[in-house]
């Protein structure tokens, strides 16, 4: 299935966390944080991963990077299966995959200088030495728009945006090809968010990076991503090219998500129709029978309570897991034939 356009191929990935009780930590249930997810990421693209808090975005990102040991499924990176690799080989292979964290305040060790933080991956992987390492660190800092002199300072001396730049410099140290960016701009001020997004776009152009961009900011996704995967309660419910998703969302969840995003323009807001969802997201420890979205879906049908829809490609590069979407697609294609 894999070809040389694909950098990452994920099949039937599951990540369940045990729920334990009592002194003996008896397992009484499972949090199904990621539940049977399959997708591919093309070389050089940015795939957006969106969905509400707790739907499993971070867990999926970490499971791909093998920071969690997946419960089931396969993860093929640059043609090589990671889930069966021995620990030692894994570390070497995963140096080409890096992560940028949401919170630039807690993700940097406060007792290390900026230089030491950026240098650390080089040390761990035994890349370069002495003078050479110092030069690499300086280059990395300059590449992300920081002054090379900053190497001797500590993280607390920097603003949120600057700390996120430090995190990016560190992620770039080992020349990765693939970066999971887990809400890299969420905790930053609006005026600073644009600085970091532009930096990430420039680095992608210069270094040919592939991004998995995790966020719940759908306005930013439309700006930065080539394709988008929408998650709901541990599953991907829609996966498509970015323009198709925004112009022709097929899953009722995606439709309501898009309608809920405010637009900074009062004239547009006056005429916008909102699809307001009732209630809250169910717990991933106890997902509903049938379709996971059936408890909140405005278009729910009888069948949705019993059977679980699969992710199906209904249009080129546009997959949806929804019986309602499938039916209307079938009707539409039947009309075409007539």
């Amino acid at each position, binding site marked *: 299935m894999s070809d040389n356009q694909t950098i990452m191929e994920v099949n039937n990935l599951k990540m369940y966390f045990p729920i334990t009780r009592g002194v003996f930590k008896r397992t009484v249930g499972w949090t199904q944080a990621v539940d049977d997810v399959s997708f591919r990421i093309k070389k050089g693209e940015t795939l957006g991963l969106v969905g509400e808090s707790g739907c499993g975005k971070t867990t999926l990102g970490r499971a791909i990077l093998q920071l969690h040991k997946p419960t089931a499924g396969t993860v093929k990176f640059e043609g090589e299966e990671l889930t069966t690799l021995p620990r030692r080989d894994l570390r070497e292979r995963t140096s080409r995959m890096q992560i940028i964290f949401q919170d630039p305040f807690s993700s940097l060790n406060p007792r290390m200088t900026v230089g030491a933080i950026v240098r650390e991956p080089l040390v761990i992987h035994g890349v370069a030495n002495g003078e050479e390492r110092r030069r690499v660190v300086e280059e990395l800092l300059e590449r992300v728009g920081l002054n090379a002199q900053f190497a001797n300072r500590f993280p607390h001396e920097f603003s949120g945006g600057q700390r996120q730049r430090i995190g990016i410099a560190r992620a770039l140290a080992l020349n990765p090809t693939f970066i999971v960016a887990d809400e890299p701009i969420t905790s930053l001020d609006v*005026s600073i968010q644009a600085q970091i997004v532009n930096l990430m776009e420039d680095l992608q152009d210069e270094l040919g990076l592939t991004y998995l961009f995790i966020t719940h900011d759908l306005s930013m996704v439309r700006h930065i991503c080539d394709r988008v995967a929408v998650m709901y309660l541990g599953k991907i419910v829609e996966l498509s090219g970015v323009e198709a998703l925004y112009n022709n969302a097929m899953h009722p969840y995606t439709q309501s998500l898009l309608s809920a995003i405010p637009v900074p323009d009062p004239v547009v807001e006056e005429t916008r129709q909102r699809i307001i969802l009732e209630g809250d997201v169910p717990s991933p420890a106890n997902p509903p029978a049938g379709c996971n979205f059936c408890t909140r879906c405005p278009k729910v049908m009888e069948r949705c309570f019993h059977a679980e829809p699969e992710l199906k490609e209904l249009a080129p590069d546009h997959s949806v897991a929804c019986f309602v979407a499938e039916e209307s697609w079938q009707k539409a294609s039947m009309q075409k034939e007539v």
Partner: protein
Amino acid sequence: MNNQSPLMSVKDLTTRFHTEDGTVFAVNGISYDLFEGETIAVVGESGCGKSVHALSIMRLIPTPPGEIVRGEVTFQGRDLLKLPRDAMRHVRGTEIAMIFQDPMTSLNPVFTIGYQIAEPLREHLNMSKKAAEERVVELLDMVGISDAAERVKSYPHEFSGGMRQRAMIAMALSCMPKLLIADEPTTALDVTIQAQIVELVKRLRAELNMSIIWITHDLGIVAGLAERILVMYAGYIVETAPVKELYANPSHPYTLGLLRSLPRVDKGRAAGRRLIPIAGLPPDQIDPTNACPFAPRCQFAVERCLSENPSLKSIGPRHQIACWVNVHEAAPEVVR
């Protein structure tokens, strides 16, 4: 709306914090009027003084280190800053209510939701236990919590984030305030829940004829909610205008910068369109100079901006900016 006298009139409100590092000039002489039934939004980035401004109106500034240095907050004829403590407590319980950003910090984990909403009703409105309990069920019902009669017995941790925020709104509205101050009430919530809360507030505002001050850093959310916007930077109001005018005709370089740095969900990325960030960082507001606080980040700054901080001046009907430069003349290609 304009020919009546304002519900609240803030004049020259100035609040500072005396800290080890120096004095933080958090709010620097802001003035504005709020009319009955009007919704205004206070927008600006982290640290610009939005919360301190609201807490000053509510007289909830921790003193020390905080100090309301000067100003007046005339609410229905009385200066709140001069009221005795008890009278102010009563105003907070009955006439002005506030919703805080993080509902967990303002809900007490050891009492049931029902008890916490009933408390102020009994204290400020002298309701009987039974009447208060009935009212609580009505209120929870009003904010869209299903099965309210059962839910009053729940503890805060048994509610989801969105439900807690709705419970907070129910508590804030319990005494039918004339003014609701909402400090980033949806920032921690998902967009679908945020949309629920915004619809709820719009509906209640119409039903109760409340005035609202909605504090946020999100220029998106208030576009469809507020009638007037106050843009704050470094403790100053730098631009204020009716909502449509502000978005159609932003005239302070900071407002312009904020709007240009935002991606929009209703518009695709036109070929090669890049976000246009504002360079640099906001100032720390410790012992500031006489310069315009935005000057170091401003692409339009001229000599004068470095020596003299501009005050608000009118540039159109109800549209004011604090800026020496006319960006529309200086750079029409940027403003479009």
